[in-house]
């Protein structure tokens, strides 16, 4: 499997919330990077995880599958997942795959942080 062209920067916002800034290509190959970011975000100590997709350049169906795996992991820890920064194209993909029913989508970081109770 080729190396993933992606970076994920983790910022803590408040005690129990973390934001992951995703830049690059989301494919199945970036699962180790996402899971490292999840751990860096505090793992089970974080109750709210916000994914920032403003830097998303490319996503295939393997990437969507990987997000489902992250969702399962977050649900197991009773964590909420939210997303913002999705372009119209990627927002439609979330709706098409019905991932938007499990990951709340917001227009901005502010609304994502306000929508997810802090």
């Amino acid at each position, binding site marked *: *499997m*080729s*190396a*993933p*062209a*992606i*970076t*994920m*920067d*983790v*910022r*803590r*916002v408040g005690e129990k919330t973390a934001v992951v*800034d995703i*830049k*690059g*290509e989301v494919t199945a190959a970036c699962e180790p*990077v996402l899971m*490292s*970011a999840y751990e*860096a975000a505090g793992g089970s100590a974080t109750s709210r995880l916000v994914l920032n997709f403003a830097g998303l*350049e*490319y*996503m*295939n*169906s*393997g990437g*969507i*599958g990987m997000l*489902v*795996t992250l*969702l*399962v992991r977050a*649900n*197991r820890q009773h964590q909420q997942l939210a997303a913002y920064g999705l*372009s119209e*194209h*990627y927002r*439609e*993909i979330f*709706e*098409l*795959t*019905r*991932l938007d*029913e*499990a990951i709340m989508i917001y227009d901005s970081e502010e609304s994502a942080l306000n929508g997810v109770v802090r």
Partner: protein
Amino acid sequence: MTEPATTGTAGPDKVASAEQIGLSAREVASLPPRDAASWAKKVDRLQVDPRDGVRGTNVAGRRLTGPVQGFGKMWQKTYRMDAGPQIPPQQAIATWREHFPEFWPKGNRFAGALTGINPGDVALLDLAIGGGVKLSTGVFVLYADAESFTLMTPQGHQFAGWITFSAEREGDTTIVQAQVLMRANDPLYEIAMTLGGHRKEDKFWVATLTALGQRLRIQDPKVDTRSTCVDSSRQWRHSRNVWHNSMVRSVLQTLAAPVTGLGRLMRGSKRGMKSQPNG
């Protein structure tokens, strides 16, 4: 707020960056994403045209279902085949996309578009479930590019999820694989999957990959199967998915076929009598 922690690695240099080809930030923002043509356009409910050779029921008007909408335990099943060094991934996927129905085990029908597998297509399926009954359902082509394609299931299908078919180089060889990410759609299917359904599904995809391997002229194709339970909990809030169960509906449709056929015949003959000119 703390300093950001960065995780990531540089990817392969497949595509020139915007800077390299001299595009401004505004020009980049106005370009469609590189994956735009690979994804299906958004649909709320499936629409289908009748196709020869399949019953074509239990698909029109149905919504798509991903693993989030399913009921049973979540499984990731991977079926891998070593295609050898001679076959590029693109060739394997092109063959698979073009001849997809031909690789299915006998007794099962896949009626897709004549042009092969393309994003947004809806294919109608008749699957052999024993006792002479065919399970009528369908699949939606969610994604397709040169190295992979993904099918997503509608309400009523045995499972809620998607199947990704892909090929890629691993060292000197090409690995071809089918990967299913799924939950049984409702409690009845969950029971059926536990009572041999998983085994039947494994045999189905091993047979499919073997047939593809034979088409690609691979000597003695071998398929490795790996199943992982990603989530062992069941989503009871989705137990009402059973209303759409295509297996139950297919059995009822098979039983009712003589009656509905007779009714259709009688309506047809009545219309024929009415349209007869008075002598």
